[in-house]
């Protein structure tokens, strides 16, 4: 595990080079690694406002509005997330802190303002729903690349984009048995993902519905960002629409923000 993480980190600086000889059909695992990099690791840090609409099959809605702060741990594939809730009203001021490790379950803390209490939560990322949505924690922060066997099935067009179609089969039993991902050859963002269940039927469907190019602070780099995403539970008809606004990269978030302390005293500067 350690080795794979390390190799992933070593790979990161050479990613542009790989991009250069992309014609030579990169291996499936490389594509997945680049896709993860593009989807989860853009910039050194990131701040965004996330609106999640949880919609039932017959159209009933619940809305969650939160600010998400993310910082990549320099030198490793670890990340830290700080989530601060604005809506629904009765959970305002609730906050989550997630320390993400690709190769094991995240560390999570939660602040419950009504009882002014911080609790660490131990849970399985692959099966716990992210704030009641159709996304799991794993979907939000990424899955360990070597945990699956990746195969490049074919290359095909999806809408306007040329895509790799990658099949990922988990090595150990998890909530799905197979994932098909359509990865944009240019941006390496996953445009569509199909999750199959134990009966080998399509169970969940992810789509990136809108991609925007967001310039990083300082204007040196820019990042392709999926600002509208949907995850649909095909079996139950439930779906989650995500809209991401006010995205900013490389804003210089301090590691101290991602601590238990800020759960109770959130960094006002960033969460407004």
């Amino acid at each position, binding site marked *: 595990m350690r080795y794979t993480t390390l190799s992933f980190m070593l790979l990161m600086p050479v990613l542009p080079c790989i991009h250069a000889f992309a014609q030579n059909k990169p291996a499936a695992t490389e594509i997945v690694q680049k896709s993860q990099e593009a989807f989860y690791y853009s910039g050194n840090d990131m701040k965004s406002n996330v609106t999640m609409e*949880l919609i*039932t*099959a*017959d159209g*009933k*809605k*619940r809305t969650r509005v939160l600010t998400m702060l993310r910082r990549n741990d320099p030198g490793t594939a670890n990340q830290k997330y700080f989530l601060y809730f604005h809506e*629904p009203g*009765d*959970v305002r001021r*609730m906050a*989550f802190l997630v320390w993400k490790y690709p190769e094991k379950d995240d560390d999570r803390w*939660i602040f*419950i*303002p*009504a*009882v002014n*209490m911080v*609790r*660490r*939560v*131990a*849970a*399985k990322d692959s*099966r*716990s*729903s*992210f*704030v*009641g*949505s159709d996304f799991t924690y794993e979907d939000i922060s990424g899955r360990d690349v070597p945990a699956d066997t990746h195969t490049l099935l074919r290359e095909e067009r999806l809408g306007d984009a040329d895509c790799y179609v990658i099949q990922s089969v988990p090595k150990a*039993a998890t909530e799905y048995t197979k994932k098909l991902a359509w990865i944009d050859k240019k941006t390496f963002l996953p445009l569509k993902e199909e999750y199959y*269940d*134990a*009966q080998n039927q399509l*169970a969940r469907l992810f789509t990136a519905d809108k991609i925007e190019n967001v310039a990083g602070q300082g204007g040196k780099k820019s990042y392709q960002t999926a600002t509208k995403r949907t995850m649909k*539970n095909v*079996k*139950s008809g*439930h779906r989650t629409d995500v809209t991401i606004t006010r995205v900013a990269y490389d804003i210089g978030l301090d590691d101290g923000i991602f601590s238990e302390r800020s759960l109770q005293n959130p960094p006002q500067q960033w969460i407004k």
Partner: protein
Amino acid sequence: MLDRSIKRLTNFSVTHPWWVIGLTVVATVAFAAQFPKITIDTDPKHMLPVTSPVRQYNDQVEREFALHADVIALGIVNKQGIVNRTTLSRIAELTREIQKMPGVIARDVMSFTTIDNVTAQGSDLAVRPVLERIPESAADLEALRRTLLENPLFINRIVSPDGTATAIYVPIEPTANGKLIADEIRKLLPPDPGDDQYLLAGDPIARDTFGAEMFRQMGLFSPIAGLVMCIALWLMFRSVPMVVANMSVALVSIIWSMGLLIGLRYPVHIMSSMSPVFLMAIATDSVHIFNEFAFRFGEMRDKRRALLDTMATVGKPIFYSDVATAVGFASLATATIVPVKIFGLVVGFGTLVILLMSFTLVPAILILIREERIPKAARSLDESHATHPSSLARLGEVCVRRAGMIALIGGAFFLVAGIGLSRIRVNNNMVHWFKTESAVRTADRIMNERLGGTSTAYLVSQSENEDAMKDPVMLRGIEGLQRELEKDPRVGKTFSVVDYVRRINRVLHNDDPAFERIPDSAEEVGQYLFLFGTSARPSDLDNVVDYPFQKANLLLQLKSWDAGVMRDVIGRTEAYLAAHPLPGGAKVRPAGVAYFNLVWSDEVLWGMLESFLAGLVLVLILLVVQTRSLFWGILTFLPLLFTIALIYGVVGLVGKDFDMPVAVLSTLSLGMAIDFAIHFVGRFQQRYREHPNLREALVWTVARPGKGIFFNAILFALGFAVMVFADLTPYITVGVFMVAIMLLSALMSVIYLPGLIHLFHRVLLKGKLL
């Protein structure tokens, strides 16, 4: 007019028998050609139309709370305790394999490996599957056992309070067949279970097993019943053509009516699947023709004359008795339940086919019997003449002489029957359609002994306002209702959002039991539920509260499928809420399969009971029209009334439920029990017109048509007696009832009618000739 039409029809049939037979065969082939289009529907729920409020509300509740209508429960019992490595591994393996099965809603299969447990680990909050990996050490096993038994959310739901039983709940798609999935699950079970016992229960299994069995048993017992009737018929008349004639009539009516049903694209439902047996029974009516024909031929030795005379004599009673039967069944068309309506019309149509055949096919076949073979038939009746008719004649004598006494005894019976009738309980319990020792019923019983119960109900609290279900006052109200309902020992488990809130409150406070209560502010409740919704599977929360937190679902597990349990639950709920109303005028409405059964029971069964009463009135009117006399009409009606009163009196006295099979039978009894009285009265009136001697005419009627009546009754009873050996209790009920209906109505007609006619001859005969 009627006489003339009958005469013309039989004349034609006797003159052109091959034409009649040929035409019948052609028509029958045409109807039989529809059979391959058959579709089958065994779900009793479909007996209420999709538009019925209870179905619509049920569907709505299931949608709003992400619930599934059909859930199979695989119970696992180990008297030494289910928390051991072998059993736990099997549970994990079974869950995994069951989730792979097509038709299973994999994401909502509930077992130790899929259900999350929220616990406090030190100051941490742990949300983990109850069984993530099989514990290695005895200490770990004991820890798991403790975790299970400590969590009130699990007790009686996925673990028994003593740790000896668990269940895997398997929701299936609405289109899936519960029996087929149960069969697949059975294949997964360990061949050598050791101390484990595996039990399959749940509504879809009972329903679909019944559906499958029903066709099997019908396929097995209709031919056996037919065969027994053939043999009995042959013993009575010693004539193969007569047996052929009778069976052809039955077959033709079955093929025509089922062909029509299938051709019109109606699915064959539990009820209409019984039509063949019913039609076979009704077709025995032609025995009256055989009986009279044998007598007549013996007297005049002229085949054609004997046949035409026979038809002229018995034609009218046959016409009226068949029409009465048809009316009895068609009265079901007044029911609101579509399959009941269709069943009534199908059997009504089949009865009319039998009527048509009685005047066409039967005479056509009889005229083809070679003369030298008929005397045999006549002689075989003559031989028994020495014993039977005379004993029947003696019976007639006694009935006339002791009329008062017999009437008195009848009155006494009536009184007892009345007591029984007042005790009749309308109830439908599908599990009781299986025998006590059957797998389905055993599984249901054992699981109800150990876990919360195999039947489910929902009580949905609904407020005017969003977020009302976060209000601690509301939650306390629901909690109070839960505690109240749990006082009923048949309510094995209650479960609501309250239980989650209490659990999270306790776990957040370092597992301090003092915090296992509803917190004081709505904000706290809201945040706890949010926390729960973000760590576990969202559907767990969805099952108990709707999206705007305007409705809460209280889930009940009931230990019995009796409709009465749900009726009591509703009664208790109403009483409790009257004394402790929920805040903001929130209302509570029931739903779920148990409630559905209750409504079904009430609507379908009471509906059938009403149509049955309507049928009674229709038949009475028909009788008055036929006899052109109010008194004769009522008199003819009495044996029917008496038979029905006695049968249902006994049903009430022995405490058998008035359930769907019994309800179907009530309509049958209506059509069947009237036949004999119509024959008796019709034939008596004819005889009295020809020989106006009251006593002689009565004794003659008992002796001669009475014989046909008894033959018919015995034939019928024998045919259906074999059903007592069926595996499904409704068929046993059908068998016993048929026998009882036939014998009783025959006895009533032959014993009571002469007595009553004699007693009331002054009113009935009034000096005028009929």
